[in-house]
């Protein structure tokens, strides 16, 4: 059977009723950066082997997407007399690293471009992962700096040409 846990089968109900919470304010951005290893590398292997009961369930009950956006937008509006949350150095540094890796202006601010990058569909694996005590890359690959040393020659002297033009579809 399709596995479910809720009496009313709501956990396998229509997908249109469940939406991820958009990242529009600092708190959400901090959580994002923490979740994907930008503030501190994630031990992904350890998470894999943790018991399910020990994991905080942050899955949200079905909500309308517009309702979620309204809630997030209202959170971002300055509330009187509450103070604006302070930004830690760690958060700002992580934000800058994220901006640099994503090719957007490094402002250290949760600006529109940064929100756009954070709200893109993405893989759930953290970007900075600690594996077996060794950091696996830091968001950029050293391999990207390698240059290929393969040999290219032309084959026109015989009057023949290689007919295999590059194709992007298999």
């Amino acid at each position: 059977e399709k596995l479910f846990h809720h009496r009313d089968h709501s956990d396998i109900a229509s997908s249109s009723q469940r939406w991820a919470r958009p990242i529009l304010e600092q708190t959400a951005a901090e959580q994002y950066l923490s979740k994907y290893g930008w503030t501190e590398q994630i031990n992904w292997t350890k998470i894999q082997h943790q018991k399910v009961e020990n994991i905080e369930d942050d899955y949200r009950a079905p909500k309308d997407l517009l309702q979620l956006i309204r809630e997030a937008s209202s959170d971002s509006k300055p509330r009187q007399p509450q103070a604006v949350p302070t930004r830690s150095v760690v958060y700002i540094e992580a934000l800058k690293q994220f901006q640099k890796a994503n090719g957007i202006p490094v402002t250290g601010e949760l600006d529109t471009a940064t929100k756009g990058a954070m709200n893109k569909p993405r893989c759930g694996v953290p970007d900075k992962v600690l594996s077996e005590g060794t950091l696996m890359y830091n968001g950029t690959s050293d391999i990207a700096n390698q240059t290929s040393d393969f040999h290219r020659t032309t084959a026109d002297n015989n009057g023949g040409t290689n007919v295999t033009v590059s194709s992007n579809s298999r």
Partner: protein
Amino acid sequence: KKRFLQLLFTPRGQVSANPDLVNKLPKMAFFKPKLTWRLMGEGYSNQLSIEDQKHVLRMAFRMWSEVIPLEFEENIQSPASMVDIKLGFGTGRHMGCTRTFDGNGHEFAHAWQLGDIHFDDDDHFTTPSNGNGISLLKVAVHELGHVLGLPHIYRHGSVMQPSYIPEDSMSELDWLDRKAIQQLYGVCESPFDTVFDWIHREKNQYGEAVIQFITYFFRNELYWLYENRNNRTRYGDPISISVGWQGIPSGSIDAFVHIWTWTLDVIYFFKGTQFWRYDNENDQTYTEDAEGDKYPKLISEGFPGVQGPIDTAFYHNRDQNIYFFKGSNVVIFNVNTNQINGHPKRIIDVFPPVVQNDHPIENLNVVYYSYHYQSIFFFKNNFFWKVVNDWDKKKNPLLPLNGLMPKRKISDQWFDICDVHYSMLD
């Protein structure tokens, strides 16, 4: 038997993958040549048919298999604990996973290194034929990259970018992605049966006759079209020989010869004691050609003085001879006189080594003239020797005529010619 299997299981040192990386991070990669996978029954997507899901996942596995010496086979029978990679779709809290999905948007999947893959069924996955939504193929290729040991890579064009890029929903593994995974698993190395450039004439848009060549590699029952300009095989290869070449034996071809003179344009395939003539126009072998010759035919009948089976052969348009190689000898057959020139000669005498003791000696796999490199190559096992050509002689007049340059690895010049599991062939 594939030599790389011995290399992979060697505890230290002689591994075809990057030894520094493998020794420092021994658990980064699978150390088996074949992995099993299964789409879990309780993890089927609600959005696509089971057949579509499996078809896309199979393609994703195949794409990695095409660039590393690793095969993947779907396993639907063994206990789940014996399956290497389990895949499934879920929402929210799913399949006993410690990481909860977040609904439509944001995270669409996650994977565990050397482990399983979960897709968020709240996200709208589509098959390659349907452009709307998130390409399941692209996501699966990405997540498989994690399972195999790759992290996120912030490089334009990489399949391991963390965010989903819809513009190139059918992205292939580019050069750098291939090198990244090959640092963990090494490159594909296995002897070939035959390699040749297929010459044919076509008319261009102006009606002018144009001569074109296509490079093919044959091994066992499979063949690849090799794109010299792109330093890789055609996307989607290998293909079964029986699918692409009608009428020739379905595997283990010994040689290909294309005799091309002012008066002759004939293509032959050799296997065992027989040979077949190929009809280029109709893309299949002749059973009987215009001259009344029936095929297959005994090599000794078609080429008096030559006894099959042979190791390999090639046609040299410079002297209009076919060179038949067998054991440590070569027999030279003239296509104009239709008879052999003298007695069998030692390969090492006709094609001497440039560097002492660096010579294949005998039992060649392939002798191949490349129009791309304008050179003749001798293949044996995983190595090749280039025959000295005019350009080499101009650079260094001391080189012996028809000498064999020092050996090099085939995989250093022709890249990523990898087998895939037979279950992934059409």
